[in-house]
């Protein structure tokens, strides 16, 4: 199996004023291609820090990190930007779409920073990506014209558009009601079934149950790393929901 994430003894320290904060105290983590991993932990557990490091938004203090086989240490800011662009697709809690910009243009955005892709290709790829998340008919809508669930789908389409090695989702259901949350989780599961690697950071246990593997952090240590043999199926939950509605 190809390793998408290979982390050994990762330590992250912050300087907060006079105090040194040890956010991560030696994390080993391997994630293979095609996995669906939920990273859990209470606030202050270091899960956000870990996500930032996985997402190449932040540098690690000690340890080793290989992303898709590439050594992440000793890279400059521009290389970091290029890796975020090509290898990682971000999905955020607050969607983080550009306001007053159509869904298509939002999805197209990462491609504009990728010099290998020509402009007419970018448009076609963005449209295909929106099709994949089931919003093929809403490409001209602006975020304000879309529901929360639809906005998160646009964000997911944007994350997918550059064919990344990894989708990194930070509390993707945090701003959604429970039914929409399950719909979004179904989309994640469908994408995972197609072979896309997903890392989901959440503090909600029921959301984490849709993943195939659960990693729990506490005080900067990994305290649990288990395969969820009985994972929840979003599709089943949705159909039971529909049953209740009727």
């Amino acid at each position, binding site marked *: 199996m190809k390793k998408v994430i290979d982390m050994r003894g990762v330590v992250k320290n912050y300087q907060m004023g006079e105090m040194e904060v040890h956010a991560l105290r030696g994390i080993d983590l391997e994630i293979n291609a095609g996995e669906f991993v939920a990273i859990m932990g209470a606030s202050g557990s270091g899960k956000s820090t870990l996500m*930032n490091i996985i*997402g190449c*938004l*932040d540098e690690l203090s000690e340890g080793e990190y290989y992303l898709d086989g590439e050594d992440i240490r000793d890279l400059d*800011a*521009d290389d970091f*930007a*290029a890796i*975020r*662009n*090509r290898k990682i697709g*971000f999905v*955020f809690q607050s969607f*983080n*779409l*550009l306001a*007053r*910009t159509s869904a298509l243009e939002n999805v197209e*955005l*990462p491609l*504009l*920073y*990728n*010099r290998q892709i020509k*402009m007419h290709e970018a448009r076609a790829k963005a449209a295909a990506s929106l099709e994949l998340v089931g919003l093929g008919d809403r490409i001209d809508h602006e975020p304000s014209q879309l529901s929360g669930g639809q906005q998160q789908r646009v964000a997911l389409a*944007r994350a997918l558009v*550059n064919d990344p090695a990894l989708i990194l989702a930070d509390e993707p259901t945090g701003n959604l009601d429970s039914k929409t949350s399950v719909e979004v989780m179904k989309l994640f599961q469908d994408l995972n079934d197609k072979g896309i690697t997903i890392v989901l950071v959440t503090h909600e246990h029921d959301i984490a149950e849709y993943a195939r593997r659960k990693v729990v952090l506490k005080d900067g240590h990994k305290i649990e790393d288990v395969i969820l043999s009985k994972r929840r199926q979003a599709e089943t939950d949705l159909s039971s929901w529909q049953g209740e509605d009727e």
Partner: protein
Amino acid sequence: MRLLVLLKVAMKSIFKNKMRSFLTSLGIIIGVCSVIVMVGVGQGSQQKIEDSISSLGTNLILVFPNYMRQQGVSSGRSGRESLKPEDPAYLEANGKYILAASGSIRTGGQIIGGVGNWNTSIEGVSASYLIIKSWSMESGSFFTQRDDDTKKKVCVIGKTIAEELYPDMEPVGQRLRIRNKPFTIIGVLAEKGENSMGNDQDDIILAPTKTVLTRLRGRDFLNQIYVSATSEDDLAAAQAEVTELLRLKHKLDYGEADDFIVRTQTEITDMASATSKTLTLLLAAIAGVSLVVGGIGIMNIMLVSVTERTREIGIRLAIGARGKDVLRQFLYEAITLSLTGGILGILLAAGISSILNHFTEINALINPQIVIVAVLFSAAVGIFFGYYPARKAAQLNPIDALRYE
């Protein structure tokens, strides 16, 4: 990110805040417009001065009395008396490159004649004055050297006086009282209209030099001497000759300073336009200040925009924009704002100039050089004042920027 995409992004964010973008550009619009109009007006007035001086006469050399003696000690009033009534005739008779020379003694006063009275200026000149000025007569004739020598009380009047005092009759042959001295009108000058300063060139009476000197002024020196060179190429030679002859005539010893000043028309044009050049420069500088103020306005709005769009910057950085991509994005936005302002400013300036030219006495020229300079300058303002906010945006940390509320 590619240039075209960047420009598109810049245009888009400018159009998202139409009012704000317009007001921001307004500083540049006004700045560029005022630079162009101010310089245009300055150059227009310069042009007018040059035109009016060249209309003074052909191949003209002017001689003035010298007010100053050597070593900065002023000669006082007596210095003004250095030009003698005989000097013009002497120059005309002895100068190889001198076509004609005429003295000029000016006075003014109330005149009575025809249907009423009028206040005007009276200039005493030689018979050759008409040739020097290349003026012509509408009726009658100009006075002769003999009239001058005999101090005859004859005069030639301008068109304005003819119209004011003799509306329904032929002025030639009529009697006219200048400061209560009777004169006979022997001719009317052809109409010349207003000069560039707005003075009526037809509101004048010309009389023989000696007549004016003895009968109206009672003195023995000239205000200035007009000399016409034989040709334009001989101007410098004629100037040297005038100096030489006058020194001889005034019996100045070797080493003694000239008691007169000789200026060619070109020199006078240069001197007159030097003032208006300075004025043009001053106007441009004042207008330039408004351009800088406009630039500060752009910087201000760009700083606000960067703060406002911190989240957008965070998103862009997270999905793979490099610092320089963000820098360029904001820089192009600032340049687009200032350049659009610059172009609108040029159009506005063109409009204002043509209104000035059509509806007022002010003559404004649009100088293509200034237009190019204004465009480049406004782009430079965009780069200069846009760089700091853009760099601020580029240096944001994506994690902090994404969390920014």
